[in-house]
């Protein structure tokens, strides 16, 4: 049973790490601020979410799971709001979205 949980945790953590890698590559490669925003929120939402799921499986108490969940929700809230604010202000300041 422990082995199964360990394997599941490993898979979730690795999957989460892949999303973080994706976020970084997006930040690195994408052509303008709007597309980079898009890449970034993947790391925040899915990457961290998968990691939280993986770590929750190893948690010793429900309180720990609750704390992990709270941290994830807070990061979601912050990154979604910040992404929106930056995109909106960028529009107002006249930064044109990238067109092929």
């Amino acid at each position, binding site marked *: 049973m422990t082995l199964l949980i360990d394997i599941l945790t490993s898979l979730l953590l690795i999957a989460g790490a892949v999303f973080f890698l994706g*976020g970084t590559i997006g*930040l690195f490669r994408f052509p303008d601020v709007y597309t980079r925003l898009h890449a970034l929120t993947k*790391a925040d939402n899915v990457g961290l979410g998968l990691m939280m799921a993986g770590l929750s499986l190893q948690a010793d108490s429900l309180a*720990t799971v609750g704390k992990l969940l709270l941290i994830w929700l807070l*990061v979601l809230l912050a990154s979604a709001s910040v992404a929106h604010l930056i995109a909106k202000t960028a529009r107002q300041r006249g930064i044109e979205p990238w067109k092929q």
Partner: protein
Amino acid sequence: MEILYLSIALFLFSTLVVGLWRILHGPTSADRMLAAQLFGTTAVACVLLLAQAFEYPPLRDVALIFALLAAVSAIAFVRRAWAAEEKK
């Protein structure tokens, strides 16, 4: 399992170092701020992995504070610094 936690923490930390490139090269201030925002999230994940690897729960409080305050610098940027740049 400790090895896995530490390796992933190390991996995340290296993506953070790569992300520094975006802060250095911009081109707009928004790009730099975005990179800093991603740093915050990566640091949260890193600290939680270290907490698990060394079985030291108080570190989760550090991650909690990072998560709570993740938006503050970006809000200051949107409300103050960027607004001032515009007037120039």
